[in-house]
């Protein structure tokens, strides 16, 4: 504990610089439904906070008091709001404020107020904040790669201030660490479709398809890249159904005979979008049938659904529904 924190342990009421302030106690109403037990430290800090808030005293000591109140309860949005008013009035060094937030965020990275405050700071600092904000979110994401607040903030920084240069590489890094990270796949789509430096989805589709196929082959049970792959074609089902890389991917995964739910469902989607499968597809799917059934006489779409009903029993009703909605002419 450093000396500054030690000093904070002196109750506010006993600090000489607060002698002139009359604390304002919490009003729980005349007959509180729920009497609340506060810690003495919390009660006193908030009583003094209320005093400066009511008198709208935008002073250095008010700033210090909000720091203490935030450490005691970072979820109180009134305290944060007042702190911003004080920071503005004092024309405070906002880079110092970034450090304050970073400290609070270490223990409370899922608190809405912190992120909202951070965004306010970044808006004030403008493009000068880009590097620090990308670094800040990166630090938070290194501890929890799926932190929704950190991702939202990062996307806002990129859209509002810029800093796209290394973002695709960053996604790649995260996916190298954990290829199952759906947030990283989502960010990849955000970059590929939104970065002003990459030329948009049409320019990126080819290389992204190859990248994704590689990820799928390494882990065919990974839901995220399968959905990403489909998303790369957006509403253009025809191009998707006719891209031989997609159908060969399905065939390749099916031939491993394991972890193939997404390969089967993708092949099913391809067929429903007009893909004409060759006999090798039928053979691969027949191989997945229960050993006692042998090659089936039904169409490929129907066989796929039957296999899925068996190997994915949690969602048997979904696959049965798919079976009943096959295009009338299936192979």
């Amino acid at each position, binding site marked *: 504990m450093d000396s500054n924190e030690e000093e904070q342990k002196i109750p506010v009421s006993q600090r000489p610089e607060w002698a002139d302030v009359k604390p304002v106690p919490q009003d729980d109403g005349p007959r509180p439904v729920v009497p609340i037990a506060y810690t003495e430290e919390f009660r006193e800090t908030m009583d003094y906070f209320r005093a400066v808030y009511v008198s709208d005293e935008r002073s250095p000591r008010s700033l210090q008091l909000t720091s203490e109140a935030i450490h005691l309860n*970072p979820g109180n949005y009134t305290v944060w709001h007042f702190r911003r008013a004080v920071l503005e009035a004092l024309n405070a060094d906002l880079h110092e404020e970034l450090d304050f937030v970073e400290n609070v965020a270490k223990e409370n990275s899922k608190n809405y107020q912190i992120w909202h405050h951070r965004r306010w700071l970044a808006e004030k600092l403008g493009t000068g904040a880009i590097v620090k904000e990308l670094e800040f979110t990166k630090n938070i994401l290194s501890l929890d790669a799926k932190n929704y607040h950190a991702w939202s903030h990062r996307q806002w920084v990129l859209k509002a201030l810029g800093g796209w240069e290394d973002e695709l590489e960053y996604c790649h890094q995260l996916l190298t660490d954990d290829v199952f990270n759906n947030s990283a796949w989502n960010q990849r789509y955000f970059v590929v479709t939104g970065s002003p430096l990459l030329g948009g989805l049409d320019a990126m589709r080819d290389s992204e398809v190859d990248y994704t196929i590689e990820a799928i082959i390494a882990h065919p049970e990974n839901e995220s890249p399968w959905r990403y792959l489909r998303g790369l074609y957006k509403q253009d089902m025809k191009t998707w159904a006719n891209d031989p890389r997609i159908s060969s991917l399905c065939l390749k995964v099916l031939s491993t005979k394991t972890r193939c739910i997404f390969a089967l469902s993708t092949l099913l989607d391809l067929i429903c979008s007009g893909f004409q499968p060759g006999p090798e597809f039928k053979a691969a799917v027949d191989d997945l049938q229960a050993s006692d059934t042998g090659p089936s006489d039904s169409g490929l779409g129907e066989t796929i659904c039957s296999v899925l009903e068996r190997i994915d029993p949690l969602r048997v009703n979904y696959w049965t529904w798919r079976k009943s909605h096959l295009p009338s002419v299936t192979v």
Partner: protein
Amino acid sequence: MVELAAEKHVRYIITVEKVSYSIRKLTCCPDPLPQYLQKKDAFESVVMEHLRMNGAYWGLTTLDLLGKLHVVDQDEVISWVMECQHESGGFAGNIGHDPHILYTLSAVQVLALFDKLNMLDIEKSVLEGQISAFLVHDDLILIHRAEKNYALGLRSTLTLYSDIASLQNEDGSFSGDMWGEVDTRFSYIAICCLSLLHQLDKIDVEKAVNYIVRCKNLDGGFGATPGGESHAGQIFCCVGALAITGSLHHVDKDLLGWWLCERQVKSGGLNGRPEKLPDVCYSWWVLSSLIMIDRVHWIDREKLIKFILDCQDLEQGGISDRPDDAVDVFHTYFGVAGLSLLEYPGVKAIDPAYALPVDVVNRILLPHD
């Protein structure tokens, strides 16, 4: 199979309501407990303090779903709720705090549970009650009320409506408070709240819907902002808002339905995003979304029921996020609400969009004679 320990849960909720109204300790929850308060000697009630309104809604709705709303002192709760209303019309999480749209919805929902939305029409005025009793013609009463409202400068629904409506931004999105944080959660809250008050015309519904549609992702799900990752909680908010505004045609129902039913894992529980752990609260967010898009039969009902029931504390009551974890009011509510959506016997039906018992929603929205 284990059964629903309804009596125990009722007792648990009454106890917690009395002590602190709610305890939240889990990272999955909107505002998790700060580290400081996770220490043994810390007071749960400190956290509670500013979000007691949410706790009241979770606890009281659970009681109603279990047919036990009458065990609480209605007048006490209502007068506390009204004490939390701010001059701006919005509600705070507790008396003496600043209003926030998160608490405003909970307050409106609590008033709805007790059939007390009329509390918002005008401050209770004995005098007015006496005068209006003498007036026969409806219009006269209305005129009279409006005049009184205006003259006395009372907090009225009018300020509440404009308070909520003022949170709508140019692009159709909503902020949570006057300080601007934007999130599709707030779109849902504003739309749900105004619909319960018959005031949807106070906002630009078309713009609000367009903003939500911009948050749709390649997997059919929705995020907090355009480009934000699909998350079951956000999906509930977006689908709920679209359902209330009659805009479900914007949802890719089959695609989203498949994504949602992929959330069910081997244990029978549901997660909120791929590769995340299952959690009882997602029973609500995933299930309600599936029901709104008419695809709930795509998940394994029996296995999910078993998962929720396995999360009960059979001795002390209450439901936790996962089997053998500590219980809290938040997950007790979502567990019971999930069972309600699964038509578990003995639990009242809950409306998937308004998150209130169906009879309460009907009372408010069905035309009266």
